[in-house]
């Protein structure tokens, strides 16, 4: 298949259907960074991250109130509009109130054959990792029962290898972004596409893409920006920032660095290694306390020469909105200006953001 980076997200449904026709395998939709995709992959299934579209959530409005997470609501809206009718299953982790609510709402309103609620501890601790390991073993057993096929010995280790390679490639993309060889939009599209197409295929695509990108001329530097966001499931905001003269060189986003930082460690107990990585390392403010979160933000900025930060929170995202005043203060203490947006990421909203972004970038340029 001829893959074009800027169309991978748009074509995700067709690609998933094609994979299903070709392999006869099951496609499993999921929310958030907390679901170890490796287990789904090891079961011979295709994990795909559920995403929304910038259109009126006309169907979901009947099931969710107005002041709630637009990302989850819009993803559900796509489900109600039958755009995810090829899904054989969904996995909903215990991430936040909205995602948890989605489990019941999806199950009640859509006829996806398999719906699994994955318990995720809400606190990082050694006992939590052990408990999560148990829950992942339950999940593995559930996938086996559903598929009628045991996950063979070594399959999880193989999946970890494929996924870790993907993480390394996305890391390399992050470095090329810092070096001015790929744009922030390209980097974000690489991360997002990684969530919706078969990993091995994505690895092959990335290797070719990064090889080509490494040979490019360094692009003229814009104002070097960090973007910290709750959930941007497309690259539109990054696009506006770069159109206005910014260069997004670092990010702290679930559909970005938080997805590909931290490999799964090699271990004789791969499920324990998954539990450790997915519970303890993903820097999500729902369970990671602020100081550890801020360490991660400092880590992604290292060597990036960041000149300013844009913090974006989707409306009603409690996890990020509480953190904002302190994250802002932490970044400002580093001598960097901060621009904050809170909204729904609609197309109309993005146009109004443009003026603020232009003024912010002008201010940094001085």
């Amino acid at each position: 298949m001829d893959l074009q980076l800027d169309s991978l997200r748009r074509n995700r449904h067709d690609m998933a259907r094609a994979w299903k026709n070709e392999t006869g395998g099951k496609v499993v939709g999921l929310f958030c960074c907390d679901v170890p995709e490796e287990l789904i992959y090891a079961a011979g299934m295709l994990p795909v991250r559920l995403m929304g579209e910038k259109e009126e959530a006309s169907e979901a409005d009947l099931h969710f109130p107005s002041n709630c997470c637009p990302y989850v609501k819009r993803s559900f809206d796509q489900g109600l509009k039958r755009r995810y009718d090829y899904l054989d299953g969904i996995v909903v982790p215990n991430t936040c109130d909205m995602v948890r609510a989605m489990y019941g709402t999806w199950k009640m309103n859509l006829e996806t054959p398999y719906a699994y609620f994955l318990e995720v501890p809400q606190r990082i601790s050694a006992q939590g990792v052990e408990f999560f390991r148990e829950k992942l073993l339950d999940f593995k057993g559930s996938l086996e029962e559903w598929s009628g096929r045991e996950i063979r010995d070594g399959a999880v280790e193989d999946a970890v290898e494929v996924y870790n390679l993907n993480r390394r490639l996305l890391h390399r993309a992050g470095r090329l972004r810092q070096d001015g060889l790929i744009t922030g939009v390209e980097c974000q599209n690489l991360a997002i596409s990684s969530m919706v197409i078969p990993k091995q295929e994505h690895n092959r695509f990335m290797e070719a893409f990064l090889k080509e990108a490494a040979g490019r001329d360094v692009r003229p530097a814009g104002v070097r920006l960090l973007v910290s966001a709750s959930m941007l499931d497309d690259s539109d905001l990054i696009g506006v920032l770069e159109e206005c003269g910014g260069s997004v060189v670092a990010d702290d986003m679930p559909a970005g660095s938080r997805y590909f930082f931290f490999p799964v460690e090699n271990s004789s107990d791969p499920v324990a290694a998954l539990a450790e990585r997915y519970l303890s390392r993903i820097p999500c403010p729902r369970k990671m306390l602020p100081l550890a979160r801020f360490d991660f933000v400092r880590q992604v900025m290292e060597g990036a020469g960041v000149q300013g930060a844009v913090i974006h929170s989707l409306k009603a995202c409690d996890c990020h909105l509480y953190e904002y005043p302190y994250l802002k203060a932490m970044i400002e203490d580093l001598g960097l200006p901060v621009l904050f947006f809170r909204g729904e990421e609609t197309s109309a909203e993005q146009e109004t953001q443009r003026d603020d972004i232009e003024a912010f970038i002008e201010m940094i340029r001085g």
Partner: protein
Amino acid sequence: MAESTSAKKHLETTLLVPALRKKHYAESLTQTAGQKTGWCSNGVPSEILDAFGINAVYVENYATVCASKRLSSGFCRAGERAGFSQDVCGYARILMGYLLGGAEAPEAPYGGLAKADFLVVNSYSCDSRMGWFATMQQTLDIPLFVLDAPYQPGGGCTEPAHMVYTESQLLELVSFLEEQTGRKLNKEQLRARIDLSRRSADIQTEIYEMRRAVPSPLSAGDAYTVVWPGMYMAGTRECDDFYARLRAEVNDRIANKIGVVPEEKFRLLWSGLPFWYNMALLNYFEDFGGVVAIENAYFRNEKSCPSQHPDPIKDMAITSTMRRHYAGDLEQRLQLTLDIVRDYSIDGVVLAYNPSCRLMYLLQPELKNALDRHGIPNVNIECDMADERTYSEGQIKTRLDAFIERMLALRK
């Protein structure tokens, strides 16, 4: 201070609560020498903190006190000025406003809160509590303990892994409190408090059951007040006595057919949290012969689990994994409300959309769909439970008037 709009109380026992609350806050400001103060979220088991002799302050309650004294606007504005979005929990904005102060923050009721030595939050109720306590930790620079437990979407469960994890978290809490207080847990005291707490909880369950009676012996205006001892004095003799007295009074009212209104014409269920700054709204229906006979927040229909183990921590772990009040998947939660409608002879439902309380708010549209499917009249009113700037008296009463008219017309 702005004028209070508290609900009219119909029961004598209810009238005891303000004094109990005042005393509770006064006592918390006069700690004994060496006593530590822990600020907690609702859901953190007070029995454990009490067994350590800790001055436990449940800050959500203080937010409702501020709201009921019509102080939420000033505190919320002070919190928002510090960067907290209007999307986040009204209780949290009030507390952050109280903590951060500034020109907009009004004078604190009850002389303010005892200074916290540490914070304890439970992670399993809602996102807001976690974010709120994590930010308070940043502001106050004091230790924070996060108490976790499995979520259990299907309600209680007895899986060994859940029990083991819950026990591990309770034991970590105990270690944390030992470190903070320099004391060891008094297990005998804990046992006694758990037993007392379960007994009062069971009386509360009985009272909920008794509220099925027609005419309604105890309506929401009283009910939202009488939950207070159970939430903040659990495990004390005083709390137990309070509910025994309340049960006797409710019994007496039922026996003598004393209702909240002289001639009960319709019965309502209030779904969601009340508007603490205008509890009198709960009495609004009484002029039309209506009564808010029951509410689904804080509702109890199950007795406590009997003791499962002599060790009190193990016992708490086992019993809490068997029952979890707010857990339960969507269908179970909807069914519970539909069952309440049937069992309490409800004619209509007021759906309070509290936009800053995600926990309650997210349920309401599906609940509305379910009520519509079952032909149960309902009305939604969108106001925050704590931030009174979201309340518009004229608009709300117009909606309620139309609802009452529609509901009564349907019955003809």
